């Protein structure tokens, strides 16, 4: 299946763009997506510290992804 990654904050800079398409096996989880993204050396160390959201909901690494999901990568707290 294909999902869309949306990078926020500092991760967009590290990724070199705000969006990226990712092809995953059916029944893949957030953890699988993170694992695939970690092959990008610029992101590798940052990803374990990020939170992840599908839509407006923060999700855990074992959350199952669906075709067409938008997975947001949220770096540590911002603002304030």
């Amino acid at each position, binding site marked *: 299946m294909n999902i869309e990654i949306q990078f926020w904050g500092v991760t967009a800079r590290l990724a070199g763009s705000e969006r990226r398409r990712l092809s995953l096996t059916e029944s893949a989880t957030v953890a699988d997506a993170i694992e695939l993204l970690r092959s990008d050396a610029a992101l590798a160390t940052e990803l374990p510290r990020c939170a992840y959201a599908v839509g407006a909901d923060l999700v855990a690494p074992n959350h199952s992804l669906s075709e067409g999901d938008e997975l947001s990568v949220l*770096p540590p707290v911002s603002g304030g």
Partner: protein
Amino acid sequence: MADGIAPALPELMDQHGRRKRKLRLSVTDRCNLRCAYCMPEHPTWLPRGDLLTIEELLRLTALFVMHLGITNVRLTGGEPTLRRGLPELIEGLQLLRPQGLQRISMTSNGTRLAELAPALKAAGLDDLNISIDARDPALFQKLTRGPIEPVLEGIAAAQTAGLPFKLNAVVIRDYNDSEIEALAGWAFEQDVELRFIEFMPLDNAQQWSRERVVTESEILQRLGTRFGAVEKLPRTASPATEYILGGHHRLGIITTVSDPFCGSCDRVRMTAVGELFACLFSAKGTQLRDALRAGEPDAALLAMIRGGVWSKEAGFAAPRGYVERPITMHRLGG
């Protein structure tokens, strides 16, 4: 090294090897503004007797500087200028410079600087961050429940007093993103350094709102349209990425405040009641005030501080998913 047992090193380290150099010291939980992202509109203040006295603040800070390698202190709140005895606190901190204290900074809303800037400068404050989320008086009033005039007077007073400062504006869509161009234009006119802070509404454990994020690239695109070519400067140790707009206007953008790189986080925070938080997301702090008031010797306090920092968790959201922050921003001082 077993978990929970901190080594008695002459520096402050957590079990992930992160050395702490910066102490954020909240000197009061009180604030005279009511910015929605920071504070409830009708907050309940801590009883004054719960707050660390100036002497207690100095004693604890001395431990951090003399025995734990802290080199930078940032005074926060609430609004730190509401704390009685603030110049005396800064004067007291000067005594720690020969012991290794390098920088005394403060984050303020600017409202009381017209009155206090000369005293703060004379007391030895090195620099200031002043928050200003809108330049339009009506919008400023709406966002903060306070008038903008004292802030503008405070900024002018800081300039007159020769206190170095930067302006910080948190940007949130449909809140103050309409002010991006006005704030930048005004800062350029005044020739003061402005930094926009990209806000990520992550305070709530269940949800986050992507619609409210105004990204760095959107800010730059809008400012480029108004002020001309955007040139990115090389990264420095500053948390902001610096840009030059239209050939000569300097601007910073901070995409992640709490140091994007948790792995190299060098901060600890102490609340106005003497609770030590090694991380914004720590589930609970280490209460130092009661031990201090019970007459515990320095060695015991140092052991508590080292233990509290040592057991700091690895980083944001680790290891058990998102951690709801147990303490509101106005108590922790950002």
